[in-house]
């Protein structure tokens, strides 16, 4: 079986993409709302990812 290496950032973005798609699909009623909510969730995941990353960077200085 082939092996894949993911960095923390790649794994987090992959998780954010998959999770946002599923959350958008199962929580909203129209396609437009689903796309908007999936993009919103993805934005929140990425903002949290970079926010916590910088927080840890400054916390360790």
């Amino acid at each position, binding site marked *: 079986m082939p092996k894949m290496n993911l960095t923390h950032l790649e794994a987090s973005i*992959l998780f954010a993409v998959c999770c946002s798609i599923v959350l958008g*699909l199962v929580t909203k009623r129209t396609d437009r709302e689903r796309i908007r909510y999936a993009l919103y969730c993805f934005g929140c995941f990425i903002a949290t990812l970079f926010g916590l990353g910088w927080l840890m960077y400054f916390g360790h200085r």
Partner: protein
Amino acid sequence: MSQKDKATPAVWLPIVGIAWLIPGGGHFMLQRRTRGLILFFTVLTAFLAGLLTRGSMFSPQTGDLFTTLIYCGGFIGDLASGIFYLFTVWMGYDQPDMPGHVHDYGTKLLVAAGLMNILAIVDAYEIATGKKQ
């Protein structure tokens, strides 16, 4: 079919069963084919990424509360991927638990795939019982 008829287990149980076994299968049975396909490929992507990064499958273990929560919860998360989990275990592709951050990301992605499928199962149940379109 009235709302009360739809709420019987005979209606929703097969759909929930298929939704567990094949991610997105419940939506497919309920004529939500596009959503079913998107759910299938999303769960598959997370699961394959977990498998290819050599993530390990949890097996239920008991002990102190923390161990029980992690191992039993992880096992339920893995099992929720349905046929992906079953094929992986049957064909011997499940990896032993190895130290290393990449394997750790894989283990979490495998559980996340199962948790995403749980969301899809709940959605299929709600559509089957008429609580949602």
